[in-house]
């Protein structure tokens, strides 16, 4: 992220409460992840040790340190989704996109990207749309009442062309 944009984000926070998390969230909202260069800039600019920013980025599950694919698919793993088959939905998506199940990224978070960088799959604790479990979210849009068949249809909307 360029300096001008980073300055613009930093300038929005005039008090200490909520400042660091807010800045990191804003950067990620634009970039999809937290680029190392941006973290170094924020660290120097605010005189906050880089290690502290790293500890925030790894403590909070919202942040990720790796670039993401064009489309982000988030599978909700909340209780209602779990009892209605969320693990199977996740597995189906992994299977369709050719991502090996059970893998995690080096920082220990679950965040997997297809080799053509079109899709990133991750999971969420619960996005509070439990009435229509199991739920997935693609690029901010929520889809409810999923079945293995339905997720294949949803992936097609985002340019997935089928496996095998």
């Amino acid at each position, binding site marked *: 992220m360029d300096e001008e944009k980073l300055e613009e984000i930093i300038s929005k926070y005039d008090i200490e409460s909520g400042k660091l998390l807010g800045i990191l969230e804003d950067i990620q909202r634009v970039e999809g992840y937290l680029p190392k260069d941006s973290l170094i800039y924020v660290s120097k600019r605010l005189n906050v040790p880089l290690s502290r920013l790293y500890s925030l980025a790894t403590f*909070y599950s919202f942040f990720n340190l790796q670039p993401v694919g064009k489309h982000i698919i988030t599978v909700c793993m909340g209780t209602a989704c779990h*009892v*209605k088959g969320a693990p199977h939905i996740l597995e189906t998506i992994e299977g369709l996109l050719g991502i090996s199940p059970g893998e995690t990224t080096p920082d220990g978070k679950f965040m997997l990207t297809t080799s053509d960088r079109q899709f990133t799959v991750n999971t969420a*604790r*619960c996005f*509070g749309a439990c009435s*229509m479990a199991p739920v997935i979210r693609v690029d901010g849009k929520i889809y409810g009442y999923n079945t293995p068949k339905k997720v294949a249809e949803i992936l097609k909307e985002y340019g997935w062309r089928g496996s095998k």
Partner: protein
Amino acid sequence: MKIRRFEDLENVRKAGIKKLLPDKPRVAVGLATCGIAAGGQDVYEALEAALKKKGVNAFLTKTGCFGICSEEPLVNIVMPGKPLVILHKVQKEEVDLIVEKVAKGELPEEKVLCKIEEWDHLTLDKPLYYGRGYKNIPLWNEISYFKPQKKVVLRNAGIINPEDIEEYIAVGGYSAAYKALTEMSPDEIVEEVKKSGLRGRGGAGFPTGLKWEFTKKEDSNIKYVICNADEGDPGAYMNRNEMESDPHMIIEGMLIGAYAIGATEGYIYVRAEYPLAIERLKLAIKQAKEYGLLGKHIFGTGFSFDIRIVAGAGAFVCGEETALIASIEGKPGRPRPRPPFPAQKGLWGKPTNINNVETWCNIAPIIKKGGEWFSRIGVEKNTGTKVFSLVGKVKRTGLVEVPLGTPIREIVYTAGGGSATGKKVKAVQTGGPSGGCIPENLFDLPVDYDHLASAGSIMGSGGMVVMDEDTCMVDTARYFLGFTLDESCGKCVPCREGTKRMYDILEKITKGQGTEEDLLTLEELAETVKATSLCGLGQTAPNPVISTIRYFKDEYTKHIKDKVCPARVCRALIDYFIVPDKCRGCTICMKSCPVDAIDGGPGLIHIIDQTKCIACGTCMDVCPFDAVIKLSGEKIETPDKPIPIKKGR
């Protein structure tokens, strides 16, 4: 305009009433996250286009969620002088028909769910009157979903536009704050809240008035109030809906609380998974500032107060007060030992009062109608209502607000309509990862803080997940321990190591490798983690294990002794078979199997090689003839190799 005097508030109220009861049809689409996901946004846009195209003079607007989420998208229609009518499961293809009817002053009868003739917003002197009529349409509370309900927190949700402060003021919004700031002393307010008996709605149930008093007593020129909107329990979404459907009630509650306590700054800590809630709260704060309801010299008094939003970043432990405070200060959210309590040393070391979203939602009606009125709702020591998110294997899902003390049975069966699948309801899980599973035979238990605790669960923030015979209780315990294991902040040993060890044992049992000794170790660990963890996360993490062992020990025994998962969930204990009589030899399952475990061919009966099968269930999903079955501890007769299907079948 700035509201200073009572007349100013009245003028805005009158302007708002014209929007709620316009002299032309009012059409409002339910657009909370749940409504949007169900297709509400598409319906809204289609309505906009159709009204324009057909030249119909109507007032199109949006509202929050009326609570019956499984019937969404919901659309409200108010014809001048007639009852408000709620349409359900509205699809965008049906919009043309709806608009045609509205143009003629008629209703699309087949889409009607119920009607509202008058509505008590609680903060108005008398209920808002729409009109009588439509004899054949049931009243809202004649629908079984709403029968046991009483709307106090959700008094405006699904009726007013959450993005318009004038509509909130129209139904008496900010009149309680006016009363508090201009007619009451801080002591009187605290007294009123104490009298109401309101207990914290975040889960622990600490008396709110007492909590306020602790912070109020502290001598400090800077004090803070915080709204805990880090709704982290999976399966619970009341707070999301309260913020999205009626954000001003939270601001008004905080304003009253801040005045009583002597705080000048407030924060709403919202989890990042709720972007729409954040957007609507930001807009509501902006509007409140424009109207002078936040900022300097509110209502022309000497009191000044401001609120800011802090977005959390996905850490369950931040629901704990001291972790939440650390998070706002820009640190990882790790709890610290108490005392000192936040009331003495909170945010930036200053006295701080933290309440859950729903606690704040109750404040305005308590001030408006009195603590005495509130204390008459519910049962002794458990006054008022509680909103539950009724989800899982239940027919009607959504938010159910009932007086405390309502039996579980009424919530699950009367409101929820019982099982969604036709299978028997087995249990209900309350309180999220800190709670427990209550078996069906205890469903006469009144839902309140004390009865739930005695049954080994907790009230928690209000999640209620219904489970049926297809839900494995050992898997459920493993699921929750997996959750707390991941979310443990790692600071104290019992929680960090204990949850991991408990998870490992549960995983071993679900894999059919558990021993009876494991079960004893599990129980011992559970007691230790509960007794010795630093904060609420660890202290309550064993609850799902303890409660499932208490009520469903036979399921554990079956996994351990017989290597059987009665609900057929635990993958290592289930086998898939193709029923020879049902297979039509279409080859779809064979082609879909990710590990090539299926042998067959066109016209042949397919068989699964159990040594290769990973029990993923893909064959069952794709079979067009329901020929694949799932068993645990049982077998069916299948041919040794694929053989031709008998002709004439």
